[in-house]
């Protein structure tokens, strides 16, 4: 306003202006009068401007309008000025000759206006619209918030996105699906859609006949879980329950033996472990609950074998501790049932028996990892740094490498001990492991051995076989290795080992069976007693079954074999844990019993190295580690 211009200088109405105005009103003013009037007019103007500012402030504007000024005039009992209400700026013009300034008035043709056909519509309706800024704990406006969709409804864009994504994922085009999954995994703005996606995923129950769809939904879970911008909150429960469904339920799809529902279960289990590792904080409350339900399934003999299989891989997915806690103590009871299935050679039982072998393989994998982990965890304190190191170091490596998307943080000891895909035999390897295990382990081992017989031992040896991939180290290490062996190994174990190794050679398929986890010390102690009693009989049973299978296996092998060969060469390249294992396991069922396969183990060459391999892992970290990461090692980790 006028008052604001310069410091304390005001717009002044000159004497002449006053005179002119008076003239136009038909009055003649003297100079003195005009001067006084001019001054007074200035003052009144300033006063009016000041009080009009008050109206502006209360209207919460920064712009003084004619309206404000008029209000000020009105409240000081002065007539308001009319005709200046328009929002547009007014044109202020000068006429050169007369030094006149004036506001231009526009001429308006009323007739035209009245007869105009384009009647203005008037301005849009005043409305209120809500926008929400979700703040995270630090007060940053999150791209998405911790309060999912509390207030807002879906915008059209989001809705469209949702439709496109679901259509792409559940549709036919694999490429589209990949893109959609990728976006789901990295999009930062889909928080509001989370509940909808979760709902879609919960639809697993309605498509249990369609492996393909189940698989896609699981991939969707994976993408959501991996999206770093999403806070899953309580929705994680729903996701977990969908995943559990895929793991445990006797899916309609599994009725047809041609359907590879095993892969699905493995993938689901992998996903489960991934969720637990990456969203541990959200699901910690679920851990027990899930253990219980797994145990329930496992102990329910009425359930089909594929459910049992799911339970086992599920346990395996939850970590070796879970295996130790649930599977191991339950094994003796379960074994009887399984054995019965496996021992039934009738043709009608063929399919069931094949399933039984699957379960058998899965248990074997789980148990071996258990043993391995046990073995690793126990020696650690005893052997000090050398032994502990490998665990720690290998661990992180392993998980990083593991399947592309899924990178569960490692159980610290898990990786080092696990040798998976080893179909290799290596007699020496067996001993090696033995020497590692301190007191409680042997007990557990002996009990497990009573069930699995030589297959168990093979597992260990195989893992060393991986070492074989490291070309340079082998011989060198082997020597260092041997010395400690001599000291530590107790006579029994050493003696046992050779036996095992002998068997090992025969059973190449064990590669598929994952490694075992070592059982807890306490169990091992008690187990030893039991195992002694059992061992003899069981071993015989095991061997018999094995031999039996071999014979029977022939008939069934046909298709599995065909599939099998290729994976063999492949194992190192598998980045995908489950897939890899799956293959192996499938073979397991049959292979162990088939001599046919003997040639298959392609990496037998590595045998010597296998042995040595362990050393590098333990003692020297760097080189072997890298190798491992690239190779099969990745396969073991996730489970």
């Amino acid at each position: 306003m006028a008052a604001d211009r310069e410091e304390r200088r005001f717009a002044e109405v000159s004497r002449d202006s006053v005179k002119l105005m008076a003239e136009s009103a038909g009055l003649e003013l003297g100079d003195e009068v005009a001067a006084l009037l001019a001054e007074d007019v200035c003052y009144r103007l300033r006063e009016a401007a000041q009080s009009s500012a008050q109206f502006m402030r209360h209207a919460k504007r920064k712009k003084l309008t004619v309206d404000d000024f008029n209000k000020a005039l009105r409240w000081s009992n002065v007539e308001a000025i009319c005709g200046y209400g328009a929002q547009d700026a007014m044109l202020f013009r000068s006429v050169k000759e007369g030094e006149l300034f004036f506001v231009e008035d526009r001429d308006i043709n009323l007739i035209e206006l009245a007869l105009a056909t384009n009647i203005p519509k008037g301005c849009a309706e005043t409305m209120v619209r809500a926008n929400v800024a979700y703040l995270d704990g630090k007060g940053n406006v999150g791209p998405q918030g911790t309060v999912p969709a509390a207030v807002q409804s879906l915008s059209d864009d989001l809705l469209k996105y949702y439709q496109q994504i679901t259509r792409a994922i559940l549709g036919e085009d694999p490429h589209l699906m990949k893109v959609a999954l990728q976006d789901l995994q990295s999009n930062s703005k889909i928080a509001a859609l989370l509940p909808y996606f979760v709902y879609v995923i919960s639809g697993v129950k309605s498509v249990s006949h369609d492996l393909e769809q189940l698989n896609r939904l699981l991939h969707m879970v994976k993408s959501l879980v991996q999206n770093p911008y999403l806070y899953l909150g309580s929705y994680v429960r729903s996701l977990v329950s969908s995943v559990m469904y895929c793991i445990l339920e006797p899916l309609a799809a599994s009725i047809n033996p041609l359907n590879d529902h095993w892969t699905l279960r493995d993938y689901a289990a992998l996903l489960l472990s991934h969720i637990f590792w990456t969203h541990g904080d959200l699901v910690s409350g679920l851990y027990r609950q899930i253990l219980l339900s797994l145990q329930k399934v496992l102990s329910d003999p009425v359930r089909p074998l594929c459910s049992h299989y799911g339970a086992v891989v599920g346990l395996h997915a939850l970590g070796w501790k879970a295996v130790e806690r649930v599977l191991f103590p339950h094994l003796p009871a379960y074994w009887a049932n399984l054995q019965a299935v496996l021992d039934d050679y009738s043709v009608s039982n063929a399919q069931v028996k094949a399933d039984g072998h699957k379960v058998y393989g899965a248990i074997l994998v789980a148990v071996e990892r258990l043993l391995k982990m046990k073995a690793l965890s126990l020696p650690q304190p005893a052997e000090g740094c050398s032994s502990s190191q490998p665990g720690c170091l290998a661990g992180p490596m392993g998980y990083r490498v593991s399947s592309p998307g899924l990178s569960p943080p490692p159980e610290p000891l898990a990786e080092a001990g696990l040798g998976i895909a080893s179909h290799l035999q290596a007699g020496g390897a067996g001993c090696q492991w033995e020497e590692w295990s301190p007191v409680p382990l042997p007990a557990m081992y002996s009990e497990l051995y009573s069930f699995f017989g030589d297959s168990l031992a093979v597992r260990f040896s195989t893992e060393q076989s991986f070492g074989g991939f490291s070309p340079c180290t082998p011989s060198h290490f082997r020597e260092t290795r041997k010395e400690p062996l001599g000291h530590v190994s107790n006579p029994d174990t050493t003696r046992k080992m050779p036996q095992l190794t002998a068997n090992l050679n025969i059973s190449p398929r064990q590669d598929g069976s994952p490694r075992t986890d070592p059982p807890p010390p306490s169990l091992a102690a008690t187990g030893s007693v039991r195992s002694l009693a059992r061992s003899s009989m069981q071993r015989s049973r095991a061997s018999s079954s094995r031999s039996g299978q071999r014979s029977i296996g022939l008939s069934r092998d046909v298709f599995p074999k065909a599939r099998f060969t290729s994976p063999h060469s492949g194992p190192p390249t598998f980045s995908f844990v489950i897939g890899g294992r799956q293959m192996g396991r499938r073979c397991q069922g049959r292979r162990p019993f088939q001599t046919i396969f003997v040639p298959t183990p392609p990496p037998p060459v590595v045998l010597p190295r296998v042995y040595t391999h362990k050393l590098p892992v333990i003692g020297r970290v760097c080189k072997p580690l890298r190798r491992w990461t690239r190779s099969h090692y990745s396969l073991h980790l996730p489970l």
Partner: protein
Amino acid sequence: MAAVQGGMVDAKDELDIKSEPPSDGFGNSNANDGRLLSSSPGAGTGGTATGNNKPAPGPPEEQQTLLAVLQFLKKSKLAESAEILRREAGLPEDALDPKGTDASGSGPGLAAGSGQVDGVDASSLLSRVTVSSSAAAQAPKKAAAGEDQPDVSVVLSAYSQQGDPSLYDAYYSGLKRFIESVLDCHRAELSQLFYPLFVHMYLELVYNNNESVAKAFFEKFSGDQECYYEQDLRILSSLTKKEHMKGNETLLDFRTSKFVLRISRDSYQLLKRHLQERQNNQIWNIIQEHLYIDIFDGMPRSKSQIDAMSGSLAGEARREANKAKVFYGLLKEPEIELPLDDEDEEAENEEGKPKKKKPKKDSMGSKSKKQDPNAPLQTRIPLPELKDSDKLDKIMYMKESTKRIRLGSDNLPSICFYTFLNAYQGLTAVDVTDDSSLIAGGFADSTVRVWSVTPKKLRKVKSAADLNLIDKESDDVLERIMDEKTASELKILYGHSGPVYGISFSPDRNYLLSSSEDGTIRLWSLQTFTCLVGYKGHNYPVWDTQFSPYGYYFVSGGHDRVARLWATDHYQPLRIFAGHLADITCTRFHPNSNYVATGSSDRTIRLWDVLNGNCVRIFTGHKGPIHALAFSPNGKFLASGATDGRVLLWDIGHGLMVGELKGHTDTIYSLRFSRDGEILASGSMDNTVRLWDAMKAFDDLETDDFTAATGHIHLQDNSQELLLGTYMTKSTPVLHLHFTRRNLLLAAGAYNP
């Protein structure tokens, strides 16, 4: 009371009475006079010497005179004489009790009629008030138009004594030199004299027609004044003629109220000695007549301490003005049984998260049960009884509050912004119901628009004819009376004839108040969406209005410089709170409904006792008109925001400034505490919402006893630590803030392209 000198007291008292303008009771900043006037200005002014405002019948006026004498006697410490006079005149014992424990709220002129202290019930309160207010209503009218001219001349005549105009310059620069030469510790305090002296000397020069001298004087010394007086100086500079002085409101403020300075005894002695030595009578006269020097013992204050408190139109508040006891505690909530076993909670239990909430609920329960020692009596102000629907709402409230998010510096609320689009007609006020189901906007085109922000649409009650057809016995009669055909998201209320500057929902969501430039306040029904009452009385633009948290009462304040307390069923105000020197720009009820806070263009905030109409707190420190006020939920603190972009925090109990929040770059139009008081949100013209750590701001200060005793605050500059977040809007000034019952922050404003 720190009287300046024995001799001066009398003169001053006389002056107080004489110069009491009948208009708005300007002199009310003085606590004693304030009691006389504020409760019933009409009656109060009737007794003053000027006496041109004849309100009530004869007897009260006589009584007024007696009271004035009585007051004088008391002031002069002639207790016995006062007692004798009181007895002989038959005045009630507490007629002059400055604490106002009389609790009647009636003007003293009516005190005889309502002597009984207790038994404050609604009817008695109201009846007393309505009698007095009939007289009171006239007062503001006077203040309004140009009628007050004769009084002004009385006021101005004080300037007529004149010294030699040419010497003014010398006087002032002499004082300036003295103050600059004085010890550092005194300089800051004595510098306070500059501004009021400058103003009064300038006005004297103008009044005595020494225009050119005045101009030169202004040119020479105006640059020395504190920058926060710039606004006033600008007004002053435009004033160069004696004729202009009439009717200039700012000028009236200077003349009729004494500028208050707080100076330590040492500094004051220094000043007095200097002036006496120099025989500088001109300045001494001004000090005696126009300034009020509040002397305290102890350390002189520092520059920053002074700056924090100064800035208002009439200097700082006198210390005694803030001495009255304030019952800032909360009222006990009525106990309502809460059905605990509802489905909601069970559902939550399954989710597995409810454990944390249990203890919280307990603490809440206990909070409402224990009696707060600082709380007023439950019946101090008669409150409306709870209806069944209110109880239901309370239950809803409690349920919601169990789900409330606990906020803190590491857990900020999410913000939902309601943008008014296409508001070309100018959005001027916004309010949201407590349960956040309705939002209303007041517009410059005189309309009030109410939106439903839930899926539930707004429906009118059926017409009378249709209502007759309804089965009144049916259970869902409340549903049946609604006319489904009228359901819509938006209802527009027409009735005002000027911009709507303030709106407020009643707590029960049945009514809406709106105050407008047309000088009226209107009460609207949200059942029928029609206007029920138009409250007239302000006669000038009404800038703000607000419902009491318990409903029924409401307060309004406007351009006529008074705030009024109304009850919805009375067309005249129950109380008139007069004392501000300029427009009242915002009004807020204390959470316990016993007090009202008003912010004004005179850059002060006042707290008024609803019971007796007294001004119990005056807060100075803002450097611009105050546009936002907010009480903390526990009733202990007040936050205020002004055009200077600062938020100041006040401790009501101690009457102290306890914090300053700097950050906004433009007028603050909205302030709100979160439901538990941990976060203070401020919304401003600068298109931002800022969140402040209120817990921390209040925690840091609790312990300082010295400050509490002397009133000298020392603020650390920690605004940046307290600022938790700044959130920009898209060129949308933030006019309103509201925390939902679960502590989600709602903000509203009109998009301003």
